[in-house]
């Protein structure tokens, strides 16, 4: 396990590989993150480092400044812990910077984000039901349809696919290939799509 980064989805574009292949890619502005706190097994019950992303300059609360004081790297908007081994924690110093240089082009990463919230959605959008005919006298367009039988079983089974809140869900994508690392812009370019809207927070882990 290695530490990851907190990032922001910048948007999607396309990228030509040298062999001529055209890839759909997502640009993520990742880090720089700063080590805010080290959690140790004796004290906290587990080993981890807590990193911060995006400095907060205005309206910092007293409790916040207190928490960030030991690291001395400023107050941050986003915090995230990465679980590490005891030996690995020793490599990180309080207040030190973690940036995109921990990644290399060609590596596979996990990217976690929150999908776009779609509100209260019907079954066609939420569960990809087929729906009915739009014309030819049909009165069944995007409705749910039958949700069960009669006296036996006499109930609706749990987990039945029905309308409801859709999206705004934590999703992790594994094995996303890093196409390019841009240290000057603190950005990484990964192949394919990443959960969430443009400007949304994503976590990148090895």
């Amino acid at each position, binding site marked *: 396990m290695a530490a990851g980064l907190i990032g922001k989805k*910048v948007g999607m*574009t*396309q*990228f030509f590989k040298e062999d*001529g292949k055209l890839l759909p890619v997502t*640009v993520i*502005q990742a880090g720089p993150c700063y080590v805010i706190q080290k959690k140790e097994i004796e004290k906290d019950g587990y080993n981890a480092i807590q990193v911060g992303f995006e400095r907060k300059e205005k309206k910092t609360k007293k409790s916040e400044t207190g928490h960030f004081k030991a690291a001395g790297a400023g107050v941050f908007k986003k915090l995230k812990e990465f679980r590490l081994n005891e030996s690995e924690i020793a490599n990180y110093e309080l207040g030190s910077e973690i940036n995109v240089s921990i990644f290399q082009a060609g590596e596979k990463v996990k990217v976690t984000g929150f999908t776009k919230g779609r509100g209260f959605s019907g079954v066609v959008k939420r569960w990809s039901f087929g729906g009915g005919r739009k014309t030819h006298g049909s009165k069944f367009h995007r409705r749910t349809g039958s949700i069960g039988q009669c006296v036996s079983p006499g109930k609706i089974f749990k987990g039945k696919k029905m309308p409801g809140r859709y999206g705004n869900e934590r999703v992790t994508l594994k094995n996303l290939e890093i196409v*390019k690392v*841009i240290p000057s812009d603190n950005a990484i370019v990964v192949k394919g799509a990443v959960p969430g809207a443009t400007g949304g927070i994503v976590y990148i882990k090895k």
Partner: protein
Amino acid sequence: MVKPIIQKLESQQKRIDHYYVKPGDKIEVHSRIIEGEKQRIQVFKGDVIAIKNGLNNNRTTITVRKSSGGFGVEKIFPLHSPMVEKIQLVNRGKVRRAKLYYQRLRKGNAAKIKPKNIW
């Protein structure tokens, strides 16, 4: 709005050597073709009838049309692809439109685009 990081990434991929291509131009596109392990260059000569997807990114494509044995053949090339080895200008065309789709309705001599006189 295009983000500066994306703009930078796209402009790095752009090939400035292809910028002169305009609708109506007669051009030769030399594209690399990989067959198994071998590589060869294929030349496609025709008129540029459309440039699509804008010029300020790496997504620009050109549609090149030629007549081959009485049949019209169109090929779409990603302008900034590394598979396009080079593009040679044969002559500029005298056209009034950005998209020359009317060429698809024309045959024979009528389908010829008049070359532009460059003094």
